[in-house]
């Protein structure tokens, strides 16, 4: 599966917009992503290992909050879409 990185966080992924990952669930995907790009970690995971309230994670078009949260299963062709809150006006 692939993870879509929000623009505001791409400076922590060397500018990469899409990152290919092999993970069975959301927690594993985020762990891989933050291992590959350690500077992402404080922006995607809190001290408790949970996703902070200023980031939304979608599997395809559905928020993991409406699925099984970090335990949501992933298929190889799923897209993990990270949405960071932005406020430019």
């Amino acid at each position, binding site marked *: 599966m692939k993870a879509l990185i929000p*623009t*505001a966080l791409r400076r922590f992924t060397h500018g990469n917009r899409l990152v290919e990952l092999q993970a069975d669930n959301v927690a594993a995907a985020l762990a891989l992503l933050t291992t590959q790009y350690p500077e992402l970690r404080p922006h995607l995971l809190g001290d408790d290992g949970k996703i902070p309230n200023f980031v939304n994670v*979608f599997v395809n*078009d559905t928020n993991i909050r409406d699925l099984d949260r970090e335990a949501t299963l992933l298929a190889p062709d799923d897209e993990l879409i990270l949405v960071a*809150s932005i*406020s430019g006006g």
Partner: protein
Amino acid sequence: MNRLEPLTPEERDIYRWQMWVSDFGEVGQQKLKDSSVMISRVGGVGSVVAYELAAAGVGKLVLAHAGNVQPSDLNRQLLMTHDWIGKPRIESIRRRLLELNPRLEIIAVGENVCEANAAELISQCDLVVDCAPLFAERYLMNEQAVAFQKPLIECAMYEMEAHITTVLPGESACLRCIFPQAPPTWTREFPVFGAVSGTVACMGAVEAIKVLSGIGETLSGRLLRMDLRDMSFQSLRVSRRVDCEICGSCSSGKLN
């Protein structure tokens, strides 16, 4: 929404092309004329929202924006002009909108949204378009829009990415449902092309026209995320939080 005056012959002539939209027509145009919209701030996003709604024939705009025109406003804040540098932005906004539509009623406030003015500003309108660069202002508008049961269009951007959703209080996710907390790293200054802020602004104006006139399907319950760097668009489902501190106990509310 209060019925004011019927469309004049001049207005029928000006809005003729948009009244050809089959499910909009003269009835939709009359609804826009009878409507009031609050927009804040009226910068990169808000200036284009205001200009499009003034062009479309919305009857009244309530606008809030502080400060004087700066040179760095001019790449995106299309209601500011070079000859107005150093003078109040809100006067440039008023002047430019009335040049386009002299029939427009404008309540122009030279302040940004704050605790002291949010309720009064939002109580005067039928719909709110949130174009503020700071989360504190966005959360205030969200809170008051829910309290007054006013539809709220949320338009935001960063660099070449933009987000838009429509909040129908009591029916769809509010800003706090989607983002309960502001990111600690957000700053007032951000990278922006005027063409990007203008893109999400035009979409915000379209959402406002749809909500006010009752045509089409709005983005309520969906967050449209777009990356104009590669022209990718995702329509993402967003749901209410039953424990939302702002709208969790809110019952359904619609435009009158």
